Each structure stands twice: as C-alpha cells, then as structure tokens.
C-alpha cells in the first residue's frame, strides 16, 4: 500500500495526528472537556467552510475559528455548569454558520463531506508538512508545560492552592486543543476528531494510574487505531473514520470491562 504516494502522505499525517490527539486527549479527559473538544470540531467545520468561501486554506480557517472560540469559551465561563450551556449555544450557532458558508461558496458538496467525515485521499505533501509543523508545535508546548499542566488538569483545586497560574495554563491548554482539533480533522474529519481526542485517553484512564503511563497508552491506542484504520480502508475502500472509531470504541469497552473486573478481584 506504500507504493501509492497518497497513502504514504496519509500515513505520515495520521501518525502525527494520532500522537498529538493521544497526548492532548489525556488532558481533555482529565479536565472533563470532552464536550468542548466535540464542539470545537463543529466550529472547525464552520471555519473550514469559511476558509473555502473567502478563498483561504480550510486549515487556516479552521485554526482561526477554533482558536477564537476556545479562548472565548475559556474566558467566558470558568464554572463547568455554565460552560456546558454556553458550549451548546456556541456549537449550534457554528453548525448553522458552517452550512451557510458552504452553501454560499461554489465548492461542491463532496468537499463538505471531506471536511466533516475525513478523507485519506487528496492530502498533499504541502498539507502534510503544515500538519507536521503544527503537531510538533503542540507537542513542544506540552513538554514545556508538562508538570504544571498535569497538576492543574488532574487536581485543579490543589494546583490553585499551591499557587499555580491556573488561568494562564487553561488558556495555553485551550490553544493547543484548538490546534489539535484542526490537525486531527484533516484525516478523521471534523465530526469525529473528538474520537481520537477522547476515547484513547478515556480507555487509558481505566488501565493505568500515572500521567506518563496514561500518555503512553493513549498515544499507543490512537496510533494503532489510525494505522489499522488506514490499512483496512485501503483494502476495503470503506471510510477510514469507520475503522478508527470502531477500534477506539472496542478498546474503550475492553478498558472499562478490565477496570470492572479488577474491582471485583
């Protein structure tokens, strides 16, 4: 399958996406932000359609929209109850906008399906490079902020009590989350990017009990998911997203069963 250039590009791109999403996912899950990451992917869809409408790259449109809205959500609402409500409102607005932008632009609807559901074909070498740079940037931010971000994500109240600048950490995290959503949507699509941003980390949570181990398991599961998905999509011609999400969901339920089994033994 590596005889085809598009498969090589897709393979490299999805490897970077899986590493980034698996890493960021650990913090999405520990900060209880699965819902926000889902919303950000819908906002990303609107951003990509906006990019197409005004003639800029969909990736740039996506980054622009997700960055602005994640920072807005972060600074609007610190209480989780209010956050849920404001996220729902913002999400509805952006799905509507995304559909409007697409209908106003002259692009065909197949482009919309690509943004929404992902595609392994048609990712160019240039786009792969953009993804790699963004992914490396996100990973570097996590290496730099690893310790305080872990403290704040796994024990927000303790981190506040210890005098950490939790607000700054929250904004830093939201920026990297917005970038990760934009990166991930390129392969798995904006509607299912949250699969990679939540399920592998949620599975890891049931199996291991330290932050580094959670990162290893989460990145591992998301890598296996995308590699397996690409391979199966290549031989069956079925959508890659179907295989990735099926694998991650099975892994999640196995993880949950393992946890329950351990509890009873």
């Amino acid at each position, binding site marked *: 399958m590596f005889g085809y250039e598009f498969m090589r590009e897709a393979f490299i791109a999805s490897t970077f996406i899986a590493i980034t999403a698996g890493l960021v996912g650990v913090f999405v899950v*520990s900060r209880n932000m699965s819902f926000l990451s889902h919303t950000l992917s819908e906002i990303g869809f609107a951003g990509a359609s906006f990019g197409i409408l005004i003639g800029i790259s969909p990736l740039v449109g996506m980054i622009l929209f997700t960055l602005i809205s994640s920072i807005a959500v972060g600074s609007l609402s610190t209480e989780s109850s209010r956050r849920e409500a404001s996220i729902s409102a913002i999400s509805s607005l952006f799905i509507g906008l995304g559909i409007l932008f697409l209908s106003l632009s002259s692009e065909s609807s197949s482009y919309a399906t690509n943004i929404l559901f992902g595609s392994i074909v048609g990712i160019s070498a240039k786009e792969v490079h953009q993804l790699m740079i963004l992914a490396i940037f996100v990973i570097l931010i996590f290496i730099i902020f*690893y*310790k305080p971000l*872990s*403290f704040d994500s*796994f*024990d*927000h*109240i*303790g*981190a*506040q*009590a*210890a*005098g950490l600048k939790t607000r700054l950490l929250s904004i830093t995290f939201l920026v990297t989350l917005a970038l990760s959503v934009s990166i991930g949507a390129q392969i798995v699509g904006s509607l299912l990017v949250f699969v990679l941003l939540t399920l592998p980390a949620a599975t*890891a*949570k*049931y199996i*291991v*009990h*330290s*932050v580094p181990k*959670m990162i290893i398991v989460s990145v591992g599961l998301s890598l296996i998911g995308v590699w397996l998905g690409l391979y199966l999509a290549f031989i069956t011609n079925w959508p890659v997203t179907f295989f990735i999400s099926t694998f991650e969901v099975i892994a999640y339920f196995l993880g949950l069963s393992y946890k329950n089994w351990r*509890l009873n033994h």
Partner: protein
Amino acid sequence: MIKVENLSKRFGNQLVFENLNFQINDGDFISLVGPNGSGKTTLVKIIIGLEKSSSGTIKTSGQTIGYVPQFRNIDSDYPLSIEQFIRLNLKITLNPEKRRQNNDLINTILQRTGLTEIKDRPLGLVSGGEKQKAYLAQALLNDPKTLILDESTASLDVEVKNQLMDLVQELNHKYQLTVIFITHDYDLTKKYTKRALLFKNKTIEPIDVQKVSKDMFEMEG
C-alpha cells in the same frame, strides 16, 4: 509566625470582615471557628495569597504555607494512584541526584501519613479518610512550616476524624508544624487544638478552646 494587622475584606459593597488582628506563633495548633459564610476560607485565601485583602497587612516570616482546600473533585473514576496524586506537587527535574532526593521525600511523606502500603491504589477508590491523608501528604511536599486544613474532617466518621487529627497532632508535636484548622467540629476543637479564634460580628476574637460550643457555628441573626 503569621501576624495579621487591621485586615479587612470586602467583595464590592459587601463587608466580609474588618479589623482582624491576631498572631499565630510557630508550633501553634489553632482552630478557626465560626458560622458558614463568616469569612474563614476567605481569610485563609488571603493568608496564602490567593485573594487580595481590601486593607491591612499580613506579615509572615517568609515561610512556606501548605493549604489543604475544602473541596476536591475526585470521583471513583479518578485515575491516578495515591503516590502519583501526591507527586503532582513535585517540581520537574532531570537531575538524577534531585530525582533521588524527590523519591526519598515522597517515601518519607508516605510513611509519615501512613499511606505507604496503599500508595499504588487509585485515589478514586480509597476511603474518605485515606483521601484526606493523601491531600495532606500532597500539601506536605513543599516542606511547609505552616499547614492550613480547611474543613478536612467534615465528611468523615468520628473514628476516621480522630485518626486524621491524631496524625496532624503528631506532625505538630514531632516537627513543630504550625497548624491552622478551620472547622465546624467543636469536639475536635476541644480535643486537639491549643487555641481558637472565633469569627463573630464581622471580626475575630480569641477564645478559650474549652468554651467553644455548638451555637458559635450557627448563623448570626
């Protein structure tokens, strides 16, 4: 030593307290009592620098203060083990010597708080008393000279409350750790603390611990 002079706090137009004057000496074991909403937690937040006062001063002798907050979001799905939870408060280091020192420190703290045997259990699955010990252990990591416990015994059984307070008392005796204990529990106040400060009529006054009674925790009319 912590010396508070003429301290006042307002949120907008609302006065929380005014003209607080008191001193906490090294090795003290003091309880901070008063009804809900009287400003106990606000005062503590000002002492540790999480809130700003409206006026007045707080002088400390440059010591580290460990704070164990009142609420924590730890549900039964919480993934980290007790040891990993405590380690969140460690500074990162790549220096092998410092890493070894950190490991020694963790082991010492686990031992002092009686958590060594259960250090690998997920924090979400241990009892309320063990959770409180883990919170205490995490706060002890920075080698504080003063420890502030905010309602740490609130949701525990009587027996577990006493175990936790025995531990705190031991830390106070053996290591001269200054303890500020915010509480609604007058039995514990009488049994363990050496002095008490009572929040009353928007200010604070020293009170004999043996005279602390239930009505002091009721809302002012």
